[in-house]
């Protein structure tokens, strides 16, 4: 039989065509044509920027910049990330793309994505950029599938080993897709721009709405399991034993703290809290400030063994590792090592 003829006899589903046309037409109606806008920067601003740049690039100017960085960062920081202080693999992404760092300090760039997270067992990575979501194999960077969606951000992968789910933001909407890229659907039309979090190994998701509520929903049934108005959620985290921590501008987990920026549970249930200038750990024995700096902190991740924390000092271009026994290790020149920008900490998982 002629192969070409056999192929051409494969039926085309006309109802599918009509469904697709409806979607494509709607997308066409919503598109925003690209206009090249020439910004006319005020001459004074341009001149000032040029002077500042020239000063910063000159040897004395460079020295001033470095001095400022030292004053807000960790002194005696290592000039490069030679190794991680604990076993595991660290996922990082930002303007320089998505990277995986292994315990021996070797780094692999997975691609040109701006945010990412690990699959529940660290076998894959979900990545996002401006208009796509992709599942990537972290050793070779092979893309297994991708979805085109507008303004994709903050993907988070959860579920069981046999049936995983990925939650992500697309513009202001929160969507969930199965780990194989199928069944993509809307969960909430107006979500707040903070990362949703999966509860352990169930398909239960916590997220914040634009209206100031934190909703816990079973994404398989759509059933809302709880809804709590908090006003201004800043970050969410779920412990292994099913405790949901909600950070707001007033505090977290019963603690009155201003300016909470990130939270993360350790494997043993201790909660790391990042405020503008401090890193705290809240556990059964109370709250301990493990790091205080002049610069602004951003992001936090626990090592898989729960013995180390890492946080970022973007203004000083440093990462800071803080051990349970009070050891503090700084690593400098982070932007240069990860292709520029301010790389964010997306998670630290055990070796596969």
């Amino acid at each position: 039989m002629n192969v070409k003829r056999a192929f051409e006899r494969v039926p085309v589903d006309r109802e599918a065509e009509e469904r697709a046309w409806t979607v494509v037409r709607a997308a066409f109606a919503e598109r925003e044509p690209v206009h090249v806008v020439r910004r006319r920067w005020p001459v004074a601003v341009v001149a000032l920027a040029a002077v500042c740049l020239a000063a910063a690039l000159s040897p004395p100017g460079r020295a001033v910049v470095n001095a400022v960085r030292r004053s807000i960062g960790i002194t005696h920081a290592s000039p490069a990330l030679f190794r991680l202080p604990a076993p595991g693999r660290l996922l990082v992404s930002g303007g320089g793309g998505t990277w995986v760092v292994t315990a021996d300090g070797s780094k692999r760039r997975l691609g040109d994505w701006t945010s990412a997270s690990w699959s529940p067992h660290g076998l894959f990575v979900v990545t996002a950029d401006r208009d796509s979501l992709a599942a990537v194999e972290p050793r070779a960077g092979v893309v297994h599938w991708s979805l085109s969606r507008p303004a994709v951000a903050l993907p988070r992968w959860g579920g069981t080993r046999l049936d995983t789910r990925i939650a992500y933001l697309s513009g202001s909407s929160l969507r969930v897709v199965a780990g194989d890229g199928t069944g993509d659907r809307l969960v909430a039309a107006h979500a707040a721009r903070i990362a949703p979090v999966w509860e352990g190994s169930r398909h239960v998701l916590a997220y914040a709405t634009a209206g100031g509520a934190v909703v816990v929903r079973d994404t398989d049934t759509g059933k809302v399991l709880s809804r709590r108005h908090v006003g201004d959620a800043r970050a969410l985290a779920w412990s292994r034993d099913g405790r949901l921590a909600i950070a707001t501008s007033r505090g977290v987990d019963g603690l009155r703290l201003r300016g909470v920026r990130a939270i993360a549970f350790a494997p043993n249930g201790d909660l790391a809290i990042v405020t503008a200038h401090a890193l705290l750990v809240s556990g059964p024995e109370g709250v301990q400030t493990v790091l205080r700096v002049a610069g602004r902190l951003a992001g936090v991740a626990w090592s898989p063994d729960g013995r180390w924390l890492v946080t970022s000092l973007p203004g000083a271009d440093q990462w800071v590792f803080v051990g349970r026994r009070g050891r503090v290790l700084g690593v400098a020149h982070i932007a240069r090592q990860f292709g520029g920008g301010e790389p964010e900490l997306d998670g630290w998982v055990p070796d596969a």
Partner: protein
Amino acid sequence: MSAVALSVRPVADRRERALVRDAQRGSVRALEQLFRLHWPRAYRAALLVVGDAAAAEDIAQESFLAAVRALDRFDRRRPFGPWLHRIVVNRAIDWSRARTLRREVGVDAVPEPAAVQRESGGRADELAVALASLSAEHRAVVVLRYLLDYTPGEIAELLDLPRGTVNSRLRRGLDRLHEGLA
């Protein structure tokens, strides 16, 4: 838009060029004509690679959505078809690979399915079985050659593969299909 569109079939016909131009200017009617013109082959190509009607619909639809999002940047001197087909076929390959990820078990653990729907009768069953014996990458090359009529050189460019790889996949794919459809 795409490097592929620069060299594979470099000249768009006048009618298609006019449709792209009008769609870029906001004409829904022109966009619909482009859609109707290319949908059947895009859908059929996806279906032949993934063997799943629902997935084929998603893949073809997503490919058109990608086209709509990039429409303003599209060089209308280039033909629309090769650019669209490249997206469709690459997404279909990605989808086939991705079936392993829903179960987080590693990339080689789940066999690849390929079962074209059975509406078209017994020959379709034979075609489905024959296609199922090929990997998604082999199916993609065969579909580009025998459904979408690209030359091996054009396929190599579309899929960013060496020409020799395309030829060997075509040879192997065709042999299997002939065995299955004999």
